[in-house]
């Protein structure tokens, strides 16, 4: 079996040095099955070899954190013996190759990460980045991704309640599809993945194993080239119907005490699930490959171990509980097979047709995994490389209303109705809010509610990775506060280009530093996450990396959902105030890009201490009923926030005179609120400025009315013209 040529090693994505580590870990040459297992376990996707030393600096603890990073998903305490379990994950590369299935299986994978731990999924969210709308592939990609997310989430019956979508040429050749799931479990019924108990049966449940997705993890760890279409067979095909059955069957079995450990088969399928379970338990594992349920005849152990067929789980059961478990899975018409046992050898041994086809010591597979401290540019060196243009003088324009119309019709700010109407946001009958600052779902049968948001402003991260990393966390915090929720924890999806380029590595390192600082200052720890590197493409002739996109998924808790705030103006004749920073800066604003055709200047800075104080004050104002509507100020600035509040309610406003920098600057740490009068906001020591009064059916800007009907038409026009025109 010594047919491992350098070509075979290279085709498995292992460098020469990494192969030498394989040889020393095994003390001999691997066979093809073993090489395949090393290659996926040591891929960037599974091993985090370029990011791990920097991820360690993120804060992961708080009194309410039950389980931080390292398990299938993060777990936080939400009171009353209940826990919220959540994670966000990328499915970028598959979605570019085959958008419907790529996005659908992204949703399927993140759902499994959450229900594997014992939670019923209650909310889905997503963060999507596309290229220029006029790129020849982009309409197809957007249609496919949105339909795929809807097709999967709608069928499994989990409402999609939050998300964000950006367009930028940086994603022309490499779109980003990040999917997030939030679930709810009893805090004393959380399931973990450590395989223990010598002789305990290892059970395979779910769908059969096919030849799809082989080497998906390796593909996700490489750049695209001109031939990326040829990689279509590495994209998995999802079946949400089977996933729905798998959710119900797993939760039914979890209500018993038959399960010792459970892990979904995600990236790298049976390989990563079995290796991780055995490694975490400090055990060994023996699998009979002849017992693995296969979709096709003649599948080899190599194919079975590397397949990424969807909707499969691996469990360790207590001895003697197999029949009880099997009855549940048969009831749900799912495959169930005992395929091995937990051993004390510390080795992963695979048997097939009476022969040992793989025998790997697990400790070196984990401990000897490559770990890189890749070179990166300092912040100053990075700024010199990025060549962000100075802001300079922005020509003053007088027709603010016309600029607002232009902004509201621009791809990044246009109404997302075409997208969100394709998602069932109401199934479960617990959805309380969508389309505002955060999606809010009632915790079934209680007065509590969970708020979910996804946030990142990649153009800020590109211009200044440290400030951009801070801002992504701060905006998630602000969006949760804006609905009245107490921000509890985040998950992240760190999307970057090739870590082998020092300038990209600089984006990773400095953005993580900024995120870490924000998480610490806001008491908003990271409990789960995912890293997606090599988001670069030669397919569009650029060879350029995406904008650095460390997407944040934030979760917060409302103790009483009847106190939730919304963005829409609640009544006529309310006073409108802006609370927070009065800095005027147009650096990296959408206004600059859409109206002046420039991306320039420093992104707005985040004052974390002020952010926290402001968030706490806004939550207190919401809880006491002092404010009637709340909206955070983000993309597009103050006037866009006001316009969104007006459109959400159909109530207009008369505004104090505004200049462009005040109207469209994107200074951080600001909320727009409405109240009966200024007295309602007193007592918090907040910087408060009155900016207008609600009423009528137009926005009156610098004395000129802009009819809400015209604003709405502009807001709806982009997707309508693009998708239905």
């Amino acid at each position, binding site marked *: 079996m010594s047919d491992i040529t350098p070509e075979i090693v290279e085709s498995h994505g292992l460098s020469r040095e990494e192969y030498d580590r394989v040889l020393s870990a095994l003390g001999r040459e691997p066979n093809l099955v073993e090489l395949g297992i090393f290659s996926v376990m040591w891929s960037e996707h599974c091993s985090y070899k370029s990011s791990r030393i920097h991820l360690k600096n993120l804060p992961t603890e708080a009194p309410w954190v039950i389980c931080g990073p390292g398990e299938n998903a993060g777990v936080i305490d939400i009171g009353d013996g209940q826990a919220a379990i959540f994670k966000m994950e990328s499915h970028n590369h598959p979605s570019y190759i085959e958008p419907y299935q790529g996005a659908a299986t992204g949703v399927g994978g993140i759902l499994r990460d959450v229900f594997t731990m014992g939670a019923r999924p209650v909310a889905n969210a997503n963060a999507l980045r596309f290229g220029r709308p006029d790129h020849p592939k982009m309409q197809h990609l957007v249609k496919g991704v949105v339909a795929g997310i809807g*097709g999967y989430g709608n069928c499994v*019956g989990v409402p999609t309640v939050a998300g964000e979508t950006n367009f930028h040429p940086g994603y022309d050749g490499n779109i980003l599809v990040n999917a997030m799931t939030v679930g709810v479990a009893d805090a004393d019924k959380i399931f973990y993945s450590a395989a223990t108990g010598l002789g305990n049966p290892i059970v395979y449940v779910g769908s059969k194993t096919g030849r799809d997705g082989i080497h998906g993890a390796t593909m996700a760890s490489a750049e695209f080239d001109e031939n990326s279409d040829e990689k279509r067979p590495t994209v998995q095909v999802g079946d949400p*119907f089977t996933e729905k059955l798998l959710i119900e069957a797993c939760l039914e079995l979890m209500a018993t005490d038959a399960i010792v450990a459970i892990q979904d088969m995600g990236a790298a399928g049976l390989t990563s699930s079995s290796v991780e379970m055995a490694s975490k338990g400090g055990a060994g594992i023996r699998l009979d490959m002849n017992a693995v349920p296969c979709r096709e005849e003649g599948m080899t152990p190599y194919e079975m171990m590397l397949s990424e067929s969807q909707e499969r789980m691996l469990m360790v059961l207590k001895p003697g509980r197999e029949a009880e478990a099997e009855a549940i899975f048969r009831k749900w*018409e799912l495959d169930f097979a005992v395929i091995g046992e937990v051993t004390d050898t510390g080795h992963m041994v695979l048997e097939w047709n009476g022969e040992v086809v793989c025998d790997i010591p697990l400790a070196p597979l984990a401990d000897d995994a490559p770990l890189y401290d890749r070179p990166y540019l300092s912040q100053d060196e990075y700024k010199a490389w990025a060549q962000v243009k100075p802001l300079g003088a922005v020509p003053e324009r007088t027709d603010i209303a016309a600029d607002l119309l232009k902004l509201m019709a621009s791809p990044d700010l246009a109404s997302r109705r075409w997208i969100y*109407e*394709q998602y069932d*946001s*109401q*199934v479960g009958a617990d959805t*309380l809010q969508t389309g505002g600052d955060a999606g809010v779902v009632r915790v079934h049968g209680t007065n509590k509610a969970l708020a979910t948001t996804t946030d990142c402003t990649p153009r800020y991260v590109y211009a200044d990775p440290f400030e951009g990393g801070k801002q992504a966390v701060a905006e998630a915090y602000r969006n949760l506060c804006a609905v009245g929720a107490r921000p509890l924890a985040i998950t992240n999806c760190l999307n970057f280009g090739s870590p082998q380029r020092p300038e990209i590595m600089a984006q990773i390192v400095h953005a993580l530093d900024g995120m870490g600082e924000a998480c610490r200052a806001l008491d908003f720890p990271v409990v789960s996450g995912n890293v997606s590197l090599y988001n670069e493409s030669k397919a569009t002739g650029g060879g350029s990396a995406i904008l650095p996109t460390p997407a944040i998924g934030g979760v917060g808790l409302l103790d009483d959902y009847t106190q939730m705030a919304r963005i829409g103006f609640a009544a006529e004749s309310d006073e409108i105030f802006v609370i927070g920073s009065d800095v005027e800066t147009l650096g990296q604003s959408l206004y600059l890009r859409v109206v002046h055709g420039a991306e320039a200047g420093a992104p707005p800075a985040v004052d974390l201490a002020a952010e926290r104080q402001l968030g706490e004050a806004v939550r207190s104002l919401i809880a006491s009923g002092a404010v009637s509507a709340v909206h955070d100020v983000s993309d597009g600035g103050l006037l866009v926030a006001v316009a969104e509040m007006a459109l959400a309610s159909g109530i207009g406003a008369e505004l104090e005179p505004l200049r462009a920098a005040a109207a469209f600057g994107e200074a951080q740490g600001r909320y727009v609120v409405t109240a009966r009068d200024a007295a309602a906001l007193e007592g918090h020591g907040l910087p408060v400025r009155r900016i207008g009064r609600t009423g009528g059916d137009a926005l009156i800007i610098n004395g000129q009315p802009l009819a809400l009907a015209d604003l709405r038409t502009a807001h709806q026009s982009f997707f309508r013209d693009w998708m239905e025109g």
Partner: protein
Amino acid sequence: MAVRAAVITFPGSNCDRDMAVAIEQVVGAPALRVWHGDTALPDRVDFIALPGGFSYGDYLRSGAMAARSPIMRAVVDAAGRGVPVLGVCNGFQVLTEAGLLPGALMRNAGMNFICRTAALKVENAGSLFTSAYRAGEDIRIPVAHHDGNYFADAETLDRLEGEGRVAFRYIEACNGSQRNIAGVLSENGRVLGMMPHPERAIDAAHGGVDGRRLFESVVASVVAA
């Protein structure tokens, strides 16, 4: 005497819990949960609800396989005895596939899934499902479907209209349905199929309670019987 309501769960149903919760809130007693593989309904069932979802993953045609599951023989028999049967969304699709209601639900005219709150007109306020509404009343109930485009031939449609069997109509075109039909009644008025989800408009937190009176109508009818 509490109303005994049964909610059927098919593999892939995903609004069964929501339907059971809505019924319990209005009826005041838990709904009986029935598995698709059962061959008999619970004793003395007063009302049967087929929930929304994607039974059998919509494979073959939406509702087609569920319509042939063991429990459906018992549902058809019960309907024959006059037990009220409500099918919502996928439940409506199952009822047409089972032959309890005329017509078919095709892919939405725009080809996309649609989730929004729809404005409906109550066309028939005289049925056991709609007696708590006023005839001609405008109500708002959420829709969420991919295959809600109601089709029947012109003769059937004329007969449905003539016999007052169009229960609800979309006020604005929604999914391409013939004559904007959102819900239809069986010939004896004791089976209702509708695409909108009344169980998602039960309490104030849903943003509207216009679905509540549908269940109140059923309760009133059962109690009066």
